[in-house]
């Protein structure tokens, strides 16, 4: 064979979520500590392809990422055509933990971005003993609503076009053209109403729930790392710092010249921030 083949392998796993069988797509590369990566709203696992191809990561970590139901190559549940998709905290946590348990991952690290960065807070609170650490990229306990999201799902506005245009300002201007546009291409891919349905969770305003989650996190059992790009105006550095202040022991890193999608908009620059965190987690007892 003369063509180059990447070491990333994609497969399907059957999980029961919300009482219904689901066919879930996942990809993985590397060996070692399981590192489960969660994609952003309206997107899929492709956002982590650069991390999966980084030998400095895959030498020590088994990097896995799965497409949430309704996303990427995972199918929506039976009867989806009569449903309005709306992600909830419970459904999201169930999907992540079912994936980890279904694959029998031994105390995985869970890293998520945006809505994935937000779910790591309830996960660290509820499942600390099953997890080695959580890494939240662009994490906030509360995200201020700044856009009427009904625009994202209506017949007189193209969902793919507006999805990308709505988020394009969240990327740092310094991120390379190629990876900026690949990130936006991802935002043009999701099915009707999926991005909007994810934002139901992202902008969820039950403050009391998250306050409770944050109060229960024990970072000695499950360390919490929160990394946010300075150009992210959706989850701002101030939002992340405010969140971390409510979680004793949480470590905050503000990434210069970075936006809302660090792993995909500027993978090379992201390495300089994420490798030291992964090294630290490797060293923990």
């Amino acid at each position, binding site marked *: 064979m003369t063509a180059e083949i990447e070491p990333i392998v994609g497969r399907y796993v059957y999980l029961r979520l919300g009482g219904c069988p689901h066919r879930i797509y996942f990809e993985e590369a590397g060996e070692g500590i399981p590192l489960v990566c969660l994609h952003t709203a309206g997107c899929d696992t492709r956002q982590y392809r650069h991390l999966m191809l980084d030998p400095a990561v895959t030498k020590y970590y088994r990097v896995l990422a799965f497409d949430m139901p309704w996303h990427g190559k995972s199918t929506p549940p039976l009867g989806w055509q009569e449903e309005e998709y709306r992600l909830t905290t419970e459904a999201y946590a169930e999907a992540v933990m079912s994936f980890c348990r279904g694959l029998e991952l031994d105390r995985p690290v869970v890293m998520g971005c945006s809505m994935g960065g937000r779910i790591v807070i309830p996960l660290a609170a509820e499942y600390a003993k099953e997890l080695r650490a959580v890494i939240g990229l662009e994490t906030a306990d509360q995200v201020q609503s*700044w*856009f009427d999201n009904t625009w994202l799902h209506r017949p007189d*506005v193209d969902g793919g076009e*507006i999805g990308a*245009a*709505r988020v*394009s*300002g969240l990327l*740092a201007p310094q991120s390379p053209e190629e990876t900026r546009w690949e990130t936006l291409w991802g935002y043009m891919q999701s099915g009707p109403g999926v991005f909007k349905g994810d934002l139901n969770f992202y902008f969820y305003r039950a403050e009391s729930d998250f306050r409770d989650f944050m109060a229960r996190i024990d970072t000695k059992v499950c360390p919490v790392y929160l990394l946010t790009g300075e150009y992210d*105006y959706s989850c701002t550095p101030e939002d992340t710092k405010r969140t971390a202040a409510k979680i004793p022991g949480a470590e905050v890193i503000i990434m210069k010249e970075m936006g809302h999608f660090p792993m995909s908009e500027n993978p090379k620059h992201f390495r300089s921030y994420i490798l030291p965190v992964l090294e630290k987690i490797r060293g923990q007892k």
Partner: protein
Amino acid sequence: MIEKLPELVNGDERLVWRGRFLTVDFLVEVGDVPYYVSVQSGRITSVERGPFHTRSWRFAVRASAEAWEKLWEPIPRPGYTDILGVMKRGEARIEGDLQPFMANLRYMKEILVTPRRLRGRC
């Protein structure tokens, strides 16, 4: 800067193509100064400086002169990468019948930052 929109937009073939389904009149306000912008199939056909009396438009984009200046910096600072960011900061308002604005969001955002090209980089 807004007066320069016809040359900035119409000379960019791909940008005009992205707006090919948009024909609309809208208002841009830079501080107290209103500009009436007419678009025909993605091409800017005219920009008039106000004030206007009893003139109709589909939507309006309003911000202070300082906010527009920050939006037009060649490498904008955090929070000023696009008009939505400026809006989220409470320094811009996007009002009126927003369907044509949203259906052409990439085009609208791109034409509103074309003045960056006059400052070295777009």
